[in-house]
């Protein structure tokens, strides 16, 4: 069984990053690399070698799906599981994201108290 330890977190909104930091590092005890945009993620991802990538969808410059696509081109990240976090919550939009081959989609606003738990649950379902 693979354990979920290292998470690459890409989110442009600093406030949400801050909340996620508490939720993932303090509560979830994960090892998290925070990136504020797609390019930063592309630059740092390989060196960090995450178990899971958490991606915001709507970001200025490179959006979540494009970032994921570019990450996937790096051989070491081609198979790394990813989860989208989005405030675009319409059914059609969610369906479109799901088709991009992600483990799950977390709808914002999310509950930071439960975030780590939910990630672990999802991880268990797929890799437990």
């Amino acid at each position, binding site marked *: 069984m693979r354990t979920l330890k290292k998470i690459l977190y890409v989110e442009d909104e600093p406030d949400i990053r801050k909340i996620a930091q*508490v939720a993932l590092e303090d*509560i979830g005890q994960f090892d998290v690399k925070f990136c504020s945009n797609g390019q930063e993620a592309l630059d740092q991802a390989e060196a960090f070698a995450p178990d899971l990538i958490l991606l915001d969808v709507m970001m200025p410059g490179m959006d979540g799906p494009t970032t994921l696509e570019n990450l996937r081109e790096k051989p070491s990240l081609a198979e790394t599981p990813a989860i989208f976090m989005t405030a675009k919550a319409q059914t059609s939009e969610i369906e479109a994201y799901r088709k991009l081959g992600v483990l799950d989609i977390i709808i914002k606003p999310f509950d930071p108290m439960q975030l780590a738990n939910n990630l672990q649950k999802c991880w268990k379902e797929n890799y437990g």
Partner: protein
Amino acid sequence: MSMDLNFFQLGPIPANVMDGSYNLGLVALSYFIAVLASYVALDLAGRLRAETQAKHKIFWLLGGAFALGAGIWSMHFIGMLAFIMPMPMRYDFFWTALSMVAAIIAAGFALFLLRNEREKFTPLILGGILIGLGIATMHYMGMQGMTSHVHIRYLPSLFFLSILIAILASEAALWLAMRSNQGSLWRQFQIKVGSALVMGAAICGMHYTGMAAAVFTPLKTMTADHPLIDPFNLSFYIAAITGAIITIALLASTYKQLMVSAVQNEKNFLNAMLDNLEDGIIASDAKGKITLINRTLQDRLNSDGKSNFSKHNLINYFHPDKKDANKDEKQNPLSRALQGERIHSQELLMKINADETRDVVMDGQPIVNAQGKKLGSVVVIHDVTERLRVERLKNEFVSTVSHELRTPLTSIRGSLSLIMGGAAGKLNQKTKDLIDIAHNNCERLIRLINDILDIEKIEAGKMDFYVQPAPIAELVNNAISTNQAFGQKFNVKIELESDIPDIKVNVDKDRITQVLTNLISNAVKFSPPNSAVGVSVTKKNHWVVVSVIDRGKGISEEFQHHIFQKFAQADSSNMRKQGGTGLGLSISKTIIERLGGTLEFKTKPEEGTTFYFQLPIWREADMSVEAPKKARILICEDDKDIASLLSIILQDNGFQVKNAYSIKEAKDLLRTTTFDAMTLDLILPDGDGISLVRDLRNNEKYEKLPIVVISAKLGARGKLVNGEAINVVDWLYKPVDAKKLINAIEHIKQRIKPDKPSILHIEDDRDLLNIIANMVESDAKMKGVATLKEAKKVLAKEKFDLVLLDLILPDGSGVELLPELARLRIPVIVFSAFELPKDYVQYVTTALTKSRTTDKELLDAIKAAINKIGDYHANA
């Protein structure tokens, strides 16, 4: 009355012959009267022919007959007045009157022959002869009126010439008159005047030739059998009759003016209406030829309004999708609509030119008259470009707003929830209370955004459902446990009142959870503290009923009516107190209805309220396929070793087998037992396997029996190649290769899968054809046709187990098919917007009315009919 039998003057002209002379003024007047009468008669004849209503035809016929008959009569007697004899003239009343009657009858009969629009040769010829003879009869009868005081003999040559002139000129006038319905009004008038002049000449020519044929000799005494008319009085009669003719002419002409202007007004109005519509209109005739394109569409297509669009180039403006070319012009929806197919809300692209494309929605309908005859089609092109653009903008806006609202809320809610969870250390009570308030209101804002998005989706018809069978127990239990925490805040417990039956419902789990959460949280909010909200699940026939019961104050009577309306709460202060959005029940009701159920409530003041929804129970049986019985295979093989080898291989593959070692045995077995397939050796002790195959193919029962030929004779197949379709599944050569045999058997297995029943659906609404075909896909093979004609064609060619029939079809009524279907013993379900006429009920298994039938009822009716067919096959 004494009739002089010596009508003709055959001998020499007697010496006492009286000569007369003519008053030229009166001769000219006689011609004028003849022309006038002819004109009126021809005009009325034209009306007569154009009139479509039989009861109106009689007026035109009578008017025309009177005008012509009486006109000829007037002309005759003016002609007589113009004839000056060396003695005073008197006219016998009887003959004078009779001559007019004869003329009217002849004219009436001629018009009767010509009454119909079709120009047939024979009636035309006959009509001319009749009018000619009528004129002549009238003339000579009128002459008879003078025999009271003169003796008249006729010169045969001139007598017959006069009749010939009458006939020929009448023919000519009629030929002209037949053309007087065509061309412009002015042209019609000219033709009519021309023919009236010719006809006038015919009447006068006949008259004056007839007069020339007459040899008058004085009678010794006056012999009057009847009252006599003085010429002076006669002129009054003539004037009165001429006046009557002119009156008829004036009436007819006024009437015509009124008609023409009424028709013209109506036409102008219709054209203006079509041109002022915002939708494009295309109409075609019964052959599919385009007869009208309204100005709106012409303007849209940048036409100058005069150019004619051919069907081909019009169709090329419309494309079902973004691809450039129409692959098949006949498949183009516009082309199909112009051919009389009914098309509903078909979305198309209208490509005006390289730069401009409009989104349009097309509707096509056949135009059918009261008798059910197809006159053509009408197509409406509705431009939705703007609507789609607005819709896209709105979607983008909603999506963006939702996103922009959620992003800050994510931060607020996240922070609050982390603080409340103790991530930032312990809080004092006051801070905790304040954070609670902030958190609750934040939650409420999130719910409000979600509900508004849902409402928006519902209103746009875009709420998507991912429907799958799910156990109701799981859904209800989950909803209860997730809402317990919410209940605790209000000191309200949520309790399951009884065991949940083991039932599945076909629903979108998330949506049902949303409804349950809404109902339970409402119940909690309106329950008094320390009470319980009850949830019960019960089975009622084919439905499962889920109830959520509170012990609250009940719903006031005036509020009950708008409880499902948006933003409806008993009073607005309540809304804030209870933290609801006022949208939940409206959304819940829509969700349940979309899943095929109903959501209702019952309430008693001070006792509580129960909201309950019912959903159809999903039945496993709907999807199951019966395990096929073991198929039986006949092995026809004379070599015992090979036969037993084949038996083993086949039995191992799950077949029952029987062995036949000769053709005779095979035939006996085939007669007594039903087989699903057979293997066949070609060389058998009592004959040739091929001849057995031929025999079987000629037998209805075994026409389609799958046969695997197993032969040692490599060339045998060659004997059959010449187009002989004995249709065997496979040819195997000895020694038998087990693998190939099993392969062949796999083929057989596929062949003998129980056939799905086949249903013919006769319905001109293509969408409905598709919907129903999808509905019964797993249970039956559907074939859809849109017209009676197609239906008859496929019924003649294919066998069907059930017919689903619409009554209103583009080429007639579905009931026409019922007797034939009864003869073919095909059960029929009528599914139509109209009720089935009582006389036809006997032919029909079930009759359903479209507006009153749910999809489910229709499906049930089809399934019931299919099951009956199944029983029938099983018993057969």
